[in-house]
């Protein structure tokens, strides 16, 4: 008894320290470059991977410049980091024509590397103006043709680059005579002070928001694409499928204004990168949890957990119930065992199973199977043992074989009880499956767990309500099954 208590306490304890210490999960190393946007994206990535629950994250935030990161990724010292399509094309392949992720991935494939689709924003050079009444008819860069007298400011670099000022004016056929090259940090101030009309900026710079600037549309596609993507080792896709799909969920979810907002949170409001990242993930989760896609995926996960475990419990429990009714000694042992299983708190049971089956889908299905077993086993046992012995004798006098007796007499007679056991287990498992999220098996529980972590009632309900609805649905389904499967003569 003492041993059991101890085991149980150990188990409870491990629930709190488990993610970092007790069970060594595989690791994914997340890195970033040395500027705010890269920090934030890496932290978003790290939290997303952690939430997926398949792997631990080692953060190498601010590891270095592009070259170091690329080499580290190639050699496997890091697994993933935020990058820009334009950078990969220019720095790695010296080929600015590689614009879209398909052609880039083709080049990266032999290296065992890959990029995701765009995250939804483009961090490139851009021209910004004050978003004021005076500038309201300036919308795109080609509008500048009608305003040859505007004063333009840009960095020294922009003046010298091949794709810099000269190329821009050629491309758009602009005749701007009044321009200045200066330090990047001074450009904004000059714009605000009214010494400049137009400034060359980075399109997701936090200061755009801070100073109330507006970016002119690059309507003739002059600036190269610097789409934010995650750059990763391909084995992530196969080794961590759940993690991979969570990362894919980030695609197209961060548009420019969102990225500017996030940069501003960290740079201007001095939020920690962790805070900014969780702020984003919460906003994002609200958005994506309303998205039917994710809800559908969670529904499928949840349903699969419930369905597989229930099926296993039926396949094992009903025959076991039958044999228990025939061989009462074995039966009483089985019954006692399943009774004991039922008394183990579900989280503790999940915990017990982790050393045996790891985390994720399998231990969750096994735990749910064990929970579903008792009602099914017990009701099947009651159903079979409750059959009037005169009826089985009657079947015998008709010369029915054991199998005929089982199929034609015993199963139909026990069916109301068997079905009610299945119904109880099914409804119970829909609820129980929400706990599976704690070991990374997904389902509606994943939404609830995120909601709890963020203290977001809205999110908790988004997980809880569908799971309640599923429970009701399952109940109704089995009422219908009752209607069709219970012999008419046995209905009251």
């Amino acid at each position, binding site marked *: 008894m003492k041993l059991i208590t101890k085991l149980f306490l150990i188990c409870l304890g491990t629930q709190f320290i488990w993610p970092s210490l007790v069970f060594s999960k595989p690791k994914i190393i997340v890195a970033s470059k040395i500027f705010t946007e890269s920090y934030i994206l890496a932290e978003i990535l790290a939290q997303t991977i952690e939430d997926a629950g398949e792997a631990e994250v080692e953060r190498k935030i601010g590891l270095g410049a592009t070259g170091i990161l690329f080499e580290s990724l190639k050699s496997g010292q890091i697994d993933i980091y935020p990058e820009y399509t334009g950078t990969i094309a220019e720095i790695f392949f010296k080929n600015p024509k590689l614009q879209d992720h398909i052609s880039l991935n083709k080049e990266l494939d032999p290296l065992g590397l890959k990029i995701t689709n765009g995250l939804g924003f483009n961090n490139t050079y851009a021209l910004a103006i004050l978003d004021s009444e005076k500038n309201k008819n300036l919308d795109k860069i080609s509008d500048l043709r009608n305003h040859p007298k505007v004063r333009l400011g840009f960095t020294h670099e922009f003046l010298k680059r091949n794709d810099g000022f000269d190329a821009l004016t050629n491309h758009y056929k602009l005749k701007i005579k009044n321009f200045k090259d200066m330090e990047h940090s001074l450009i904004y101030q000059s714009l605000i002070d009214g010494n400049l009309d137009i400034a060359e900026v980075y399109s997701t710079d936090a200061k755009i928001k801070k100073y109330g600037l507006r970016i002119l549309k690059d309507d003739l596609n002059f600036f190269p694409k610097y789409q934010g993507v995650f750059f990763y080792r391909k084995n992530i896709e196969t080794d961590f499928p759940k993690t991979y799909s969570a990362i894919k969920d980030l695609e197209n979810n961060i548009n420019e204004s969102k990225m500017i907002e996030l940069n501003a949170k960290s740079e201007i409001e001095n939020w920690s990168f962790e805070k900014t990242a969780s702020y984003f993930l919460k906003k994002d989760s609200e958005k994506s949890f309303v998205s039917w896609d994710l809800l559908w995926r969670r529904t499928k996960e949840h349903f699969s957990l419930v369905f597989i475990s229930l099926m296993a419990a039926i396949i094992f429990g009903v025959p076991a119930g039958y044999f228990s009714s025939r061989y009462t000694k074995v039966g009483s042992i089985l019954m006692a065992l399943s009774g004991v299983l039922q008394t183990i708190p579900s989280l503790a049971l999940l915990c017990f199973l982790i050393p045996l089956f790891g985390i994720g889908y399998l231990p969750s299905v096994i735990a749910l199977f064990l929970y579903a077993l008792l009602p099914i086993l017990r009701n099947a046992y009651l159903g079979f043992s409750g059959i009037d012995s*005169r*009826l089985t*004798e*009657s*079947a*015998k*006098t*008709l*010369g*029915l*074989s054991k199998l*005929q007796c089982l199929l*034609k*007499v015993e199963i*139909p*007679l026990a*069916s109301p009880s068997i079905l009610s056991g299945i119904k109880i287990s099914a409804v119970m498992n829909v609820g129980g499956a929400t706990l599976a999220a704690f070991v990374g098996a997904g389902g509606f529980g994943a939404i609830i767990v995120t909601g709890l972590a963020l203290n977001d009632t809205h999110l908790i309900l988004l997980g809880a309500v569908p799971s309640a609805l599923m429970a009701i649905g399952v109940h109704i389904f089995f009422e219908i099954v009752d209607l069709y499967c219970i*012999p*008419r*003569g*046995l209905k009251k």
Partner: protein
Amino acid sequence: MILIKDVSKKFENSLALDKTNLPLAEKQTHVFWGSSGSGKTTLLRLIAGLIEVTSGEIWIESQKISTSIQKQLAAKIGYVIQEGGLFPHLNAWQNIALAGLPRAWDAHQTSARINELAELVQLEIPLLTQFPAQLSGGQRQRVALMRALLLDPPIILLDEPLGALDPLVRSELQKELKRIFNKLNKTVVFVTHDIGEGAFFGHTISLFHEGSLVQHGNFRSFIEHPKNEFVTKFITAQIPPPELLSALR
């Protein structure tokens, strides 16, 4: 001819039947009489091969009965257990047809036989779609009898078939059963604790008490030569009150 030779049956520590010898002639109705626990139902189940003798032998014609041949016996013996033993999840028709399953009867054959039997026991065909719970006690017994007769077995065993019926239905069904037995001309063993029923049906009557066969013979022999005090006590136990008898005279 059913021959019971030195048959004893023990259940755990209690002796249910003690060294019983009994010849049961063909095509007659034999009544097993006795109170509950007297051993009469035990003997019936032994004959049907549902339980194994502890010692002794039972023969039907040239076949020695044991539980190992119970399935073959099912074609030879129709058995109506107490309260009919109808399956509540099947309607009357399905209950009867189930008896054809071990012989793999087809629907046509079954249907023809059921119609024939319905006429014999005078049960209206539409009632056969009803479930047992929807039928009256008397109707249920008719269905149970039809089921026992489906394979046209030469032997019919009935265990208190009328026990659960109210007196009016019971007396009506007694006459009905007797008519059927006469018509079928089968070997019938009829277990009852009712004196009148025994007298009414039995070509021979065997009285059991606490596992022993006390007396065997026709009803008249019980009246004229009761073997001992128990026999007298048993046959007079159900005599109507004197007031009723004088009123009837």
